[in-house]
């Protein structure tokens, strides 16, 4: 088997540096059940701020807060599994302006059924 890394991203990660007056341990965690949509909404709300220092990195979001940054999505995924377990909801998103992925026009248009 040939390994396939389509993006060829860098394989490093950067720790999230919280503001000096802010401690992750002191943070009061919101105990309500977060959905992936909640996490995505929180990420989009913070995107402008994150872009300043972390553009192109992958961020792990949990309970609406950025937790850590990585150079590739696979490493971010491993980190999130270790930190939040197999059943919790977390978001892994690229810190990048929103974009859309094109899929086949024929597929969406139903041309295949003609």
């Amino acid at each position, binding site marked *: 088997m040939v390994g396939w890394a389509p993006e060829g991203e860098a394989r490093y990660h950067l720790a999230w540096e919280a503001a000096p007056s802010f401690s992750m341990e002191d943070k009061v965690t919101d105990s309500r059940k977060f959905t992936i949509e909640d996490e995505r909404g929180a990420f989009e709300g913070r995107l402008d701020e994150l872009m300043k220092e972390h553009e192109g990195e992958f961020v792990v979001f949990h309970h609406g807060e950025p937790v850590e940054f990585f150079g590739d999505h696979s490493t971010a995924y491993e980190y999130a599994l270790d930190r939040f377990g197999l059943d919790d*909801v977390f978001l892994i998103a690229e810190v990048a302006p929103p974009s*859309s992925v094109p899929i086949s026009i024929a597929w969406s248009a139903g041309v295949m059924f003609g």
Partner: protein
Amino acid sequence: MVKRNRGRRETKAEKRARKGRKPPTSITEHYASPRDLQLVGPLVWVAWSVPESLAARLRAAGRAVPAPVSGRLLVDTGASATAISVEAAQELGLQPVDIGHTYGAHGLQQNPIYEAHLSVSITGPGGQSGVEADLRVSGIRDMEAMFQKLGVKTGGRDGGRLVGLLGRDFLRHTVLTYNGTYGVVTIKIDPGSFAPRPTPRA
């Protein structure tokens, strides 16, 4: 003075056999008719599975690792990235890690994004080889139902399940030949063009 090698020369048959031992790098699909190829599009046999990072943690927790989901990907030159059917992702027990947007003729749609492992199998005279990757992929809903509407048998040997789209992120490493006149598709993979496997985190 260079000594001429007077040893026995390799016969053409032996040369072919030696070459045949190389791992195959080409996928060739012969469709029953050009009409069949037109109807269903080029398809490639694959297997989706959970990423090894998840499988290892499931095993460590004493939980079962879901069996790979085998089926076919529709080769889609209109898709910039490979995608998984939501049905296959759910069968693997994958949880979405993000929400993305895809667009087509019906406009913008929201799709779950998963971490998944893809194996593309290649069978040839030299045996079996393949290409595999951990991917961050969009999930496409109702894909299998659409495939069934085409009249392609699903779940059997003929059609297999449609478990996603093979996009241009994969095709950029290949030479794709679509012979619509004869109903034959060949995908020649260039192994040298693939990036090295990600280095595990220390």
